[in-house]
């Protein structure tokens, strides 16, 4: 107790210096916690927006389709093993995919045509909510030859809802197939390659163009995207040979890169903060110890053992660290709480447009406060400050009392 009081009062001895160091620690921790909150939320938003638009969290497909995109590399049915192994709350949408040419009057565009069952697709993606003209439900089988197009694709072809568009496609070893489709809906996701080159048609319509009615891919939405790797591993064990499972990371390599970059940025800045704090704390502790040389001599001469001197100096650092980290943590949490309500607008920093690969993203972030992450940052900063005091503490404890005492 006396040691604690001694340490606390020693910190108050040079209040300005202590406050400046404490402010460095608090500010550094606050910024780390806030930045991590922003970056984690941005990652979460990116991943959920992009996987929610089209890919889902996990995909199951034939190995041949995964590697060669061969149109005849089909799954005949949804594998029974898949339905058995998926965790509760998972949703599944089988799809057939064809590369097609769409023609309207003089204009022609290349597109990926996805055959989907709208009832199941609605459970996996939220594209139905992105339909800006017409309706998503035209993809129901009763409507037959209807198509829902990306807005940019529609613009490129000069198409509006109700127009007719001609489709050309070719199966290996077969002639060219030609069909007419009615535009039943237009979707918009804020631009990007996906909106420029994607169209949806009823599943049975696309299957009718294939050599046999099957699926190219099964898109799966899990209760939580963080389960993706685990589910993939589980499916890899259970699925029959020739059938593979992938996650959004493989389906969207650009997004995966962006996420990795985001994580690395957060890590880089939190490390940078730690280095700055290390120097600030080391400087403060050195000055504080040097000023007290005579005092350490007195302490030694009345029977204070070296470990006790080390303990005192490091306790001073620990108190400084814990008190200022508490303030920093509160500060970071407060700013996160504020930005959770108002949103933190990234546009001034990133310019008007930011895409995760081929998908547009929301640029107003509502940061997340991760208790685990914040505690980890707090602990690291406390450890760094205490470590910064180790050398000054060793110096104080190794002072020869006679030398210290003669320095009066």
């Amino acid at each position, binding site marked *: *107790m*006396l040691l604690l*009081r*001694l340490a606390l*009062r*020693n910190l*108050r*001895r040079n209040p300005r210096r202590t406050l400046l160091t404490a402010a460095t620690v608090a500010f550094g921790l606050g910024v780390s916690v806030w930045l991590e909150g922003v970056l984690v939320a941005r990652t979460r938003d990116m991943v959920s927006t992009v996987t929610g638009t089209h890919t889902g969290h996990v995909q199951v497909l034939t190995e041949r389709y995964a590697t060669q995109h061969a149109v005849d590399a089909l799954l005949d049915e949804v594998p029974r093993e898949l339905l058995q192994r998926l965790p509760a709350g998972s949703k599944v949408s089988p799809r057939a995919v064809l590369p097609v040419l769409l023609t309207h009057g003089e204009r022609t565009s290349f597109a990926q045509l996805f055959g989907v069952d709208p009832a199941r697709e609605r459970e996996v993606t939220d594209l139905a909510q992105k339909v800006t003209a017409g309706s998503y439900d035209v993809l129901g089988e009763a409507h037959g030859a209807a198509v829902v197009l990306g807005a940019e694709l529609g613009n490129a072809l000069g198409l509006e809802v109700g127009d007719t568009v001609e489709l050309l496609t070719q199966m290996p070893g077969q002639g060219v197939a030609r069909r007419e489709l009615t535009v039943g809906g237009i979707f918009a996701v804020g631009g990007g390659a996906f909106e420029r080159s994607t169209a949806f048609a009823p599943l049975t319509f696309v299957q009718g163009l294939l050599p046999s009615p099957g699926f190219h891919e099964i898109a799966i939405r899990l209760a939580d995207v963080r389960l993706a790797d685990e589910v993939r591993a589980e499916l890899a064990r259970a699925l029959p040979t020739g059938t593979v499972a992938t996650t959004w990371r493989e389906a969207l390599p650009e997004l995966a890169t962006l996420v990795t970059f985001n994580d690395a940025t957060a890590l880089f800045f939190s490390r940078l903060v730690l280095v700055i704090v290390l120097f600030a704390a080391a400087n403060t502790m050195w000055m504080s110890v040097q000023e007290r040389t*005579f*005092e350490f001599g*007195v*302490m*030694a*001469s*009345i*029977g*204070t*053992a*070296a470990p*006790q001197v080390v303990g005192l100096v490091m306790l001073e650092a620990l108190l400084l660290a814990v008190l200022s980290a508490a303030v920093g943590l509160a500060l970071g949490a407060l700013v996160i709480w504020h930005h959770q309500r108002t949103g933190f607008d990234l546009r001034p920093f990133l310019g008007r447009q930011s895409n995760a690969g081929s998908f547009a993203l929301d640029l107003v972030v509502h940061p997340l406060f991760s208790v685990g992450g914040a505690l980890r940052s707090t602990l690291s900063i406390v450890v760094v400050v205490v470590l910064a005091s180790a050398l000054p503490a060793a110096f104080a404890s190794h002072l*020869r*009392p*006679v030398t210290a*005492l*003669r320095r*009066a």
Partner: protein
Amino acid sequence: MTSQGATATAALSFEAVEKAYGGVRALRAATFEVPAGSMAMLIGPSGSGKSTLLHLAAGLDRADAGRVRVFGADLATLDARALVALRRREVGLIFQFNNLLPTLRLVENVEYTALIRGDAPRVARARALAVLEELNMSAAARRFPGQLSGGERQRGAIARCLAAAPRIVLADEPSAHLDGENAQQLFALLGRISREHGTTILAATHDLRVLAHATARFEIRDGHVHRSEP
């Protein structure tokens, strides 16, 4: 704890002790004994080696040659840990100034030596208060050293020594920064402690006005120590 070569009743004995700093020979074949329970004074001009002698006696520094014994224990044979124990239990030290830790209240400073000696906090506090009472300093117990007079600070240093109940107190010019009256009071107090507690005192001074309090006198000149008659 008695060993050969030293009188059983010696609290401190030097035997042919040498200590040099580079070319400066501060102590040369210094040989003397301080009888247990005495109120001894070490007289010598500035730079004569008084501090050097006291530092060697407290085990704060090592002699180049010769033997330093505290109650029979040869300090050269003690390791760092044993020297810490010696300073906690056997030897008390008082300096010219800045004895007290500035961020501790007087009572906490006094408590400190009892605590590091191993007393329970409650016991240490009670002991500190009792010692301050004995030295008539209860009223100043809660003050910080900066709020005490020079005389009070030196008496506080004595109180801090007493809290650990040392067998010998080494005081290095404790009245150097005090006026005549305060110096007299301080030495009177040291003399009283020596008589009432049986504590051996060795006080360095070059203040001849306080010599009357001594029961033994040592003079240090050219690195040699002589016993002179009181």
